[in-house]
């Protein structure tokens, strides 16, 4: 196959842009979370480093980088070192398929504002989110610690259970858009966002992605009160940082996907498409922080019951109803 | 799906629906009675429909057909399932084996067999076989109270998974070569002499390895004695009669499409020879009744393989007939064993001493079944062997036929050892079993069928020859 150098350059530019933006965003999401949580708890939050504490992420980064890289005795060396990467990489890779703006005309080329417009984009997302389990599982297992092992076993079971309802809640979206391609799904929402047709699927997806990012009220794998920090108890320095950043990347990615699947992607009134999309993503991020500031953690059996006995059957029912509706509408 | 398609799949629908209904009713009523009440009509209804339904007007669009072979074997499998259900009720309740899963799984297994019987593509053929084996994994391990049973189930599962992997790999290779899954086209494109390529041959070898596991032909027979020993007796009967029948049917679906065993003749020839010899020789040294019957079933599958080698010279009819006959015989044998084991008969031949005088009826059925397995004249076993060996001689496989007859003569010893133990040994005091009427009827029917099929085989043979000589 012959490749156009301009195409390659554009692709590299897009990758670099996305990388830069999401990493910065993830760092500032940590800061935003600390700030918003502080406000919810009537505190001020970090405000020492730089004006309003805006340089706090940088300070955190320096702290994490200069900390001792520590490995417990009896830990499985390679898996211990590999696990943080396995947690962060799938989260980054998901961004490849998210369309973050309307196509642009540039140098006579139509540039998709999306790194890769795969026609199995949605499936790629499901596949990658199912691979993200390995970071949690291996990290906890390789640490040779009881807390970490318990956390990773919990994480495995939780992610596996909620992946199911997440996947099922996306089926109606595919049925409505008649495509797995994310740009098609966005295009299908030009008139009306899917949240209007599929409020239930949206709710299920929202709950499932909260469980997928291991956010409160589903943060059983790292429950501080019982398991110290769960699967990353034994990690320090930048390896812990990778887990941490991976989690926030995941929040942004899943927020972006929720916006793409249910809130019309970059479609929106008044604002330019990219801004519209960013607003939606940030709104999701804020929602997660807000929920974290409000709800207590579930008990483990409640978590499992909720996933298997409520969400999954509801999602199946929703698929059935949507299918009937589509058939009747013709 | 059209109305004629519905006509084809109705037996399948009945069995599948019956299985689901049995599960549901068992779950709701918390007794297994309801499940059995659902299971009988489902099997009998499916059999009846296959018997009397008019042939569909239009060609099938769903990858299933209802030709003569399919209908005959559907009837066979369904009736067999009904008999197994009848035999297992009392057996299970005495062994503390309860739950609606058992009848539902029997129905599901029968569903798999029936799907296999009516398959027209390699895909549905394989899936039918797998569905059947899947049900049998559960059934074989279903006796949770019995220590060996679950272990047996696991052993069967591992071997079965291996053979399924071989088979699906073989199908993939064949599909890769000829680009179609329809049995007739695929077989003709690959199996006819001169047509085959090395790729397709590799595919067929994998298929043959897989099916050899299911048929327990000799290099792949090692699981058989353990599974026969650990499974509940009616399930062992179902396994030996039904699943072997289905596996034979699997080959009968494939091979006649090429007219001859073609390129598979040589491997089949060796499989047949080794199975006959190994099965009979191993059975000679065996002292436990169920393991003995397992080795005998290996030997019998060797005879069937002889028939398949003989191929178009009447071998296919003989194989089909023998599959049916062997199914009935082994079900009768295991049914009788199921009854006798309740009276306290153990594993060994010696523990059956004197049963003939205390429990005349089941002992008589067991004796009849053993005679049929040897091939004593008025029984179906004799007729089957006669058909197989004449077909083999007609096809010019004289050495194989001679070896088969010699092996049969050899088998006389160990079958008669059981019979001798049943009748000619001193009587020990035993408890009287409660022979449920339904068991009595089932065993009686099986015994009558063994005689009738043996003495008057022509209607069945006519049907079979019509199937194979289109």
């Amino acid at each position, binding site marked *: *196959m012959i490749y156009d150098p301009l195409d390659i350059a554009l692709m590299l530019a897009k990758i670099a842009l996305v990388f830069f933006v999401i990493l910065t965003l993830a760092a500032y999401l940590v800061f935003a979370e600390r700030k918003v949580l502080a406000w919810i708890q009537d505190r001020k939050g970090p405000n020492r480093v730089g004006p309003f504490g805006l340089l706090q992420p940088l300070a955190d980064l320096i702290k994490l980088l200069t900390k001792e890289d520590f490995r417990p005795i009896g830990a*499985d060396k390679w*898996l211990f070192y*590999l696990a943080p990467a396995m947690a962060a990489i799938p989260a980054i890779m998901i961004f490849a398929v998210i369309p973050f703006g309307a196509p642009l005309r540039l140098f006579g080329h139509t540039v998709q504002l999306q790194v890769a417009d*795969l*026609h*199995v984009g949605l*499936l790629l997302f*499901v*596949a*990658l989110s*199912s*691979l993200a*389990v*390995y970071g949690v*599982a*291996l990290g906890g*297992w390789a640490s040779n610690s009881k807390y970490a*092992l318990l956390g*990773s*076993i919990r994480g*495995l*079971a939780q992610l*596996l259970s909620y992946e199911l309802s997440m996947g099922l809640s996306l089926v109606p979206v595919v049925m409505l858009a008649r*495509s*797995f391609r994310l740009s098609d799904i966005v295009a299908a929402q030009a008139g009306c966002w899917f949240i209007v047709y599929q409020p239930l699927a949206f709710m299920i997806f929202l709950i499932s992605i909260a469980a997928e990012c291991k956010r409160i009220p589903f943060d059983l794998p790292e429950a501080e009160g019982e398991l110290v920090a769960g699967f990353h108890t034994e990690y320090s320095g930048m390896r812990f940082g990778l887990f941490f950043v991976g989690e926030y990347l995941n929040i942004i990615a899943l927020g972006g996907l929720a916006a793409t699947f249910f809130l019309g992607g970059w479609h929106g009134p008044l604002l330019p498409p990219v801004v519209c999309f960013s607003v939606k993503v940030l709104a999701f991020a804020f929602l997660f922080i807000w929920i974290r500031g409000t709800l207590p953690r579930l008990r483990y059996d409640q978590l499992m019951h909720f996933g298997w006995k409520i969400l999954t059957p509801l999602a199946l029912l929703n698929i059935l109803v949507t299918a009937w509706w589509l058939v009747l509408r013709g | *799906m059209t109305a004629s398609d519905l006509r084809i799949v109705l037996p399948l629908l009945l069995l*599948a629906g019956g*299985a*689901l209904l049995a*599960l549901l009713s068992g779950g709701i009523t918390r007794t297994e009675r309801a499940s059995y009440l659902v299971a009988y009509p489902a099997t009998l209804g499916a059999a009846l429909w296959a018997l009397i339904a008019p042939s569909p007007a239009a060609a099938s669009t*769903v*990858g299933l057909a209802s030709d003569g072979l399919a209908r005959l074997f559907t009837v066979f499998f369904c009736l067999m399932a009904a008999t197994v259900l009848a035999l297992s009720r009392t057996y299970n309740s005495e062994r503390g084996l309860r*739950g609606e*899963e058992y009848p*539902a*799984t029997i129905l*599901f297994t029968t*569903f798999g067999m029936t*799907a296999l019987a009516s398959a027209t*593509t390699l*895909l*549905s053929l394989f*899936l*039918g076989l797998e*569905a059947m084996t*899947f*049900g049998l*994994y*559960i059934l074989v391990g279903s006796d*949770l*109270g019995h220590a060996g049973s*679950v272990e047996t189930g696991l052993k069967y599962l591992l071997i079965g998974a291996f053979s399924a992997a071989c088979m699906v790999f073989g199908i993939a290779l064949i599909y*890769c*070569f*000829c680009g179609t899954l329809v049995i007739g086209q695929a077989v003709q494109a690959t199996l006819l002499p001169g047509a085959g*390529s*090395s*790729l397709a041959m*590799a595919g067929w070898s994998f298929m043959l390895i897989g099916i050899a596991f299911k048929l327990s032909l000799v290099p792949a027979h090692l699981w058989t004695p353990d599974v026969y020993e650990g499974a509940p007796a009616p399930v062992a009967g179902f396994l030996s009669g039904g699943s072997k029948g289905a596996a034979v049917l699997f080959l009968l679906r494939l091979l006649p499409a090429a007219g001859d065993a073609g390129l598979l003749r040589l491997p089949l020839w060796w499989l047949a020879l080794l199975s006959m010899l190994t099965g009979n020789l191993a059975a000679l040294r065996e002292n436990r009744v169920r393991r003995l019957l397992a080795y005998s079933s290996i030997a019998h599958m060797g005879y069937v393989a002889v028939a398949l080698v003989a191929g178009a010279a009447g071998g296919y009819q003989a194989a089909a007939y023998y599959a049916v006959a062997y199914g009935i015989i082994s079900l009768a044998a295991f049914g009788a064993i199921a009854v006798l084991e309740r009276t306290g008969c153990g594993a060994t031949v010696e523990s059956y001493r004197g049963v003939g005088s205390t429990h005349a009826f089941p002992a008589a059925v067991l004796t009849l079944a053993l005679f049929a397995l040897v091939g004593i004249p008025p029984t179906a076993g004799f007729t089957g062997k006669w058909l197989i060996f004449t077909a083999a001689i007609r096809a010019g496989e004289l050495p194989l036929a001679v070896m088969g007859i010699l092996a049969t003569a050899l088998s006389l010893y160990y079958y008669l050892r059981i019979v001798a133990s049943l009748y000619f040994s001193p009587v020990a005091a035993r408890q009287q079993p409660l022979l449920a009427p339904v068991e009595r009827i089932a065993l009686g029917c099986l015994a009558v069928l063994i005689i009738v099929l043996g003495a008057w085989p022509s209607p069945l043979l006519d049907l079979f020859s019509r199937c194979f000589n289109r």
Partner: protein
Amino acid sequence: MEAYLFYLLAAVTVIGTVLAITEKHPVHAIVYLVSSFFSLAAIFFLLAAPLIAMFEVIIYAGAVMVLFMFVIMMLDVGRSGDGLRPGLRQWLPAMLLAGVILALLGMMLAHGGWPAPGAGAAATLRDFSLTLFRQHGVAIEIISLQLLFAVVGALYFGKRRGP
């Protein structure tokens, strides 16, 4: 470009699988197998079968292997020992079979007789699903029933023993 990628991925797949077989530690074996599955998926993607690639990752790497890992972690097998490592006697039959199969493959390669490669048009998702559900609908029903009974069997064996 595609050819280089293919050979790279194929090498990863083969090496990963071999390591998965020879590795004595179950969790390591799982990691090797997952990487092998992943590169296999990438190969499928190169072969213009993205759907199969995705299913490979979702089902095998993402679900089956995760369940394996879950069970291994729950039972905590493999921590205690080298008893799991098979000796030469256990290896021998497998090696023999593998040798035979490899020899046959070599013979086939030398002998030829491959089917001509197809036109290479990538099947779209729509084609794929139409073929699957129109032509092989019954097969899907059989499989779904089979899965149901897998669940039934698992529940049955998981039932509490005794009264």
